[in-house]
């Protein structure tokens, strides 16, 4: 036979026992041609376009899932940052979000991203309204996701925008307090945001993209974990890296296959495969457990940053070969609540906020799905975000924050978000504040590395 039974069984085992799946197929849709200053016209034109490109998305993915026997967990849509195509007021943005949420549900889409703005250098009047509307948009709708690019290596960090958004994070948490502040899980604050990221909540359709495009995210921590468990401690770090490269190739190939096939059937351009290993709260599907099998006792212990760097580097090298186009975030996802092992490491105090931040300076893409004590002030949240943005800006990489101040809960208690969002212990936050720093406002100028010409 053209392929050995062992190879066939390896694939089947990866899917059935080790939870290999396509985490998301994200359809990016440009709304530039729907732009209109009249709200009703904008809604009408953009909903028509979403239907036109999105109506067959879910059914096509279900067909592919059956034919290939490979689960496709999420179907999502990302649109052009809304502030660029529709200048509205608070009420306008609330209404548009509700309309888009309705369309997403009708199309059986899990999340619709793009209630976003690029405010790294300044905030326009309508972008200010969008930020004002954020707590309502996030708490009133199920599927709507929002992201803000508040910093870039070229422009520096817009501290005003960071503080403004931090206040809205507090309000969004308060408005969803019966769900432990879950509304905040749908908001990402970025430095150097990628324009072709398939993962939510940070996905939006970039300004340099085609009319419609399909981007793919795979989920493979379970496969890597199972292989490392079998390998044990007999291999050196460079040998281990080689093994991870081979696995990453195989995992990424699945994304490439589904991307090509889905794009062909939908008549939409295939965009990128994002190489990030996306964990889930399921037992074994964990990046933390991979690090622990590499050899650190618990994620967060000394050695964790180096182990993570090695893991992600190997994933990138193996993945690059497997795909014709690689993009998106392609880094390490360490979403605390979405990864059972990471949540446990925080619970056991092996992993803290400062170590998570250290990892983002290497390859992690951010402080993701971190539950903060409910009484964390907007100023402290802004301080945490500013630190994270600084790492991205100075290192010329993407960094992001998805922080959830959980109303009424203290450090050590657990926040429950449910489903793929999982659960996490509330992390300890430095007792000392940064009020005077944050309240200065203004912009942190771009670093010298921004002048590259």
């Amino acid at each position, binding site marked *: 036979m053209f392929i050995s039974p062992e190879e066939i069984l390896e694939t089947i085992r990866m899917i059935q026992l080790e939870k290999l799946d396509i985490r998301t197929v994200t359809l990016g849709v440009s709304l530039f041609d729907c732009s209109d200053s009249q709200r009703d016209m904008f809604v009408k034109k953009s909903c028509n376009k979403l239907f036109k490109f999105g109506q067959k998305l879910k059914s096509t993915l279900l067909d592919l899932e059956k034919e290939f*026997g490979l689960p496709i967990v999420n179907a999502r849509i990302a649109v052009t940052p809304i502030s660029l195509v529709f200048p509205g007021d608070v009420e306008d943005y609330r209404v548009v979000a509700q309309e888009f949420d309705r369309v997403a549900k009708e199309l059986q889409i899990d999340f619709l991203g793009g209630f976003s703005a690029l405010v790294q250098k300044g905030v326009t009047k309508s972008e200010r309204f969008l930020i004002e509307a954020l707590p309502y948009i996030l708490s009133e709708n199920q599927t709507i996701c929002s992201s803000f690019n508040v910093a870039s290596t070229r422009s520096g960090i817009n501290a005003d925008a960071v503080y403004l958004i931090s206040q809205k994070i507090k309000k969004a948490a308060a408005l969803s307090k019966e769900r432990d502040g879950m509304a905040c899980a749908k908001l990402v604050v970025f430095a150097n945001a990628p324009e072709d990221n398939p993962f939510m909540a940070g996905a939006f359709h970039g300004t340099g993209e085609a009319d419609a495009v399909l981007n793919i995210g795979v989920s493979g921590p379970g496969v890597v974990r199972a292989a490392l468990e079998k390998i044990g401690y007999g291999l050196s770090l460079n040998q281990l890296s080689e093994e991870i490269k081979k696995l990453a190739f195989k995992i990424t190939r699945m994304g490439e296959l589904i991307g090509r096939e889905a794009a062909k059937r939908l008549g939409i351009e295939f965009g990128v495969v994002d190489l990030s290993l996306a964990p889930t709260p399921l037992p074994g599907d964990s990046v933390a457990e991979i690090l622990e099998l590499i050899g650190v006792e618990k994620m967060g212990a000394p050695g964790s940053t180096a182990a993570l760097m090695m893991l992600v580097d190997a994933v990138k090298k193996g993945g690059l070969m497997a795909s014709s186009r690689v993009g998106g975030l392609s880094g390490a996802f360490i979403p605390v609540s979405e990864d059972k092992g990471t949540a446990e490491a925080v619970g056991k105090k092996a992993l803290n906020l400062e170590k998570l931040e250290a990892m983002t300076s290497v390859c992690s893409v951010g402080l993701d799905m971190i539950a903060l004590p409910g009484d964390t002030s907007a100023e402290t949240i802004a301080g945490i975000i500013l630190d994270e943005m600084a790492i991205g800006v100075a290192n010329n990489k993407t960094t992001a924050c998805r922080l959830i101040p959980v109303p009424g809960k203290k450090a050590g208690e657990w926040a429950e978000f449910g489903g793929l969002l999982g659960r996490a212990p509330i992390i300890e936050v430095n007792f000392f504040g940064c009020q005077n720093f944050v309240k200065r406002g203004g912009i942190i100028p771009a670093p010298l590395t921004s002048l590259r010409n």
Partner: protein
Amino acid sequence: MGKAIVSIIGVDRVGIVAGISTVLADHNANIVNISQTNFEDIFTMIMLVDLSKLKGTFEALQRALEEKGKELGVQVSIQREEIFRFMHRI
């Protein structure tokens, strides 16, 4: 539609090949190759089948195979062969 892989995993018993082959024949799926092995203590049989003259839909064949598998007490799945080629061959 091109070729697909039928994989049967479970405990060996009389009638597995006959049962699965009958379902494939009913749907006009031609068996190109069969290989049988014990992999990690589990009986497995892999069939490469040609679906170019498939009668009915892929989904109907998939359902019929799954039902037959239940009857025989084994797990049967059918997947398009590209998934294996993509993963293991450059």
